[in-house]
């Protein structure tokens, strides 16, 4: 009930802020709107997390997985695009559900940007990684059972991440959403998309068994 309430509070605010911004910045309206939508759509997840009873152990494990994914991103700084962040987000989601997945994704973005630099792209990364985690949580059953589905999801999440970030690039540079320009951006970023997808597949295949085993062990040992 409370969860629903928070949605009701959020939904009128989104259009209100968007309209206010659109009036103020008519030229860059779309960039503004997208930034707001992305940021505000994280809020219901945060509020739901805030309201729901989470056991202390899960809370600490979410923090630990977030820290691990940030460290992964730091370790792999020399290889642009080749990052284990998505893998950790998906794994958390698979073992602790969609909400934990969203949190790990969004928080990883915020925290790693303390090291890499915050900017208007932060909300976009928060949302992208968050939603990748959320969907992975919804599909956790299939992802755990079937390696092929896991790989497909790894590729999908790489492509989705790249395409979501491209929206921002186009809006930021042009101020409006031009489909041909967007396609150009998608095409020009294709090598990154491929690196994302490949790194996701590699890390998920590499991590899913051993880390899955560790998480199962923890879950069993401390009955979570």
């Amino acid at each position, binding site marked *: 009930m409370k969860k629903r309430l928070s949605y009701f509070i959020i939904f009128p605010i989104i259009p209100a802020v968007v309209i206010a911004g659109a009036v*103020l910045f008519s030229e860059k309206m779309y960039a503004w709107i997208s930034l707001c939508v992305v940021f505000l759509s994280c809020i219901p997840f945060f509020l739901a997390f805030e309201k729901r009873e989470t056991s*202390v152990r899960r809370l*600490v494990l979410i*923090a630990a997985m977030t820290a691990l994914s*940030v*460290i992964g991103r730091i370790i792999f700084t020399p290889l642009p695009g080749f990052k284990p962040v998505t893998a950790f987000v998906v794994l958390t989601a698979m073992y602790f559900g969609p909400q934990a997945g969203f949190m790990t994704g969004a928080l990883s973005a915020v*925290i790693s940007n303390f090291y890499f630099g915050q900017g208007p792209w932060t909300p976009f990364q928060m949302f992208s990684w968050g939603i990748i985690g959320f969907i992975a949580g919804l599909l956790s059953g299939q992802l755990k059972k079937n390696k092929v589905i896991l790989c497909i999801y790894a590729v999908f999440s790489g492509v989705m991440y790249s395409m979501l970030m491209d929206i921002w690039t186009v809006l930021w540079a042009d101020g409006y959403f031009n489909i041909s320009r967007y396609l150009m951006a998608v095409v020009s970023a294709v090598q990154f998309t491929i690196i994302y997808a490949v790194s996701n597949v590699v890390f998920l295949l590499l991590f899913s068994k051993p880390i899955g085993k560790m998480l199962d062990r923890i879950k069993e040992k401390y009955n979570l």
Partner: protein
Amino acid sequence: MKNYNPFVLMFYFLAVVIISAFSENPVLQISALLGGILFCAIVTKSSETAGNIGFYVPMFFIIAVTNPLFSHNGATPLFFLNGNPVTLEAFVYGGAIAVMAIGVMLWCKCYSEIMTTDKFLYIFGKTVPKLSLVLSMALKFIPMYKQQTRRVSRAQKAMGLYSSKSVTDKIRSHARVFMAMVSWSLENSIETSSSMKARGYGLKGRTNFALFKFGADDLILLAVIVILLGVTVFGIITGETRFYYYPRISTLKFSAAYIAFGFFSLLPFIIEAKEAIKWRYYVSKI
């Protein structure tokens, strides 16, 4: 500047960045860029200055030049390149984007210097306390895990299990150490949760403590910010600051918003400079 209440600081940063990023008025953007440069000069170490100039100046030109090469809008062609017109408007627009982009980047840099994690957590802690606690824990874990990674890799090296013969060996060795660290961190997280439970985490009515206060200084700064911002936003809403690049560059009309925003983006510099002068004065008296 960094000793003001984080909420005031956050509000200020957001306002500057949003206005300079989303309005297309060159006066507003240039004053934001100027404010950003001056602020950056104060908050970053003087040893970094050369590196920053070496990074941002070329960056500025790259951004400025790419636009006219790709965008052929505009009514005043300067010359033709491969049969496409390169227009004056596109050149100017490219410059404007560069001013805006560099300005925003500089402000984000200042933000990172000023809004340290504890300030960020304070803001989050007031609005979403549970999330902020998770953030705080993650921030505590990161250096701890880094240290553990180092320990493990040294222990493995001394057992001759950490090989660096080839690239694949190296990657495999890294991966082994990383996995050991993951396992260690998950096991250790249980003790953290016990310590939290032992200290009553999960009881009803949790409060949030922070070192930051909202004092008279903060109130004054906030008032100044709100007034200057109000004048600026009024100017934007009424269309006084409206500006176009295409098809033809429009002319600038005078607006009070320019003066207000000029002061607004120079605020940190003014505050810092004032304190520096005062400091010197006191030192000279001693």
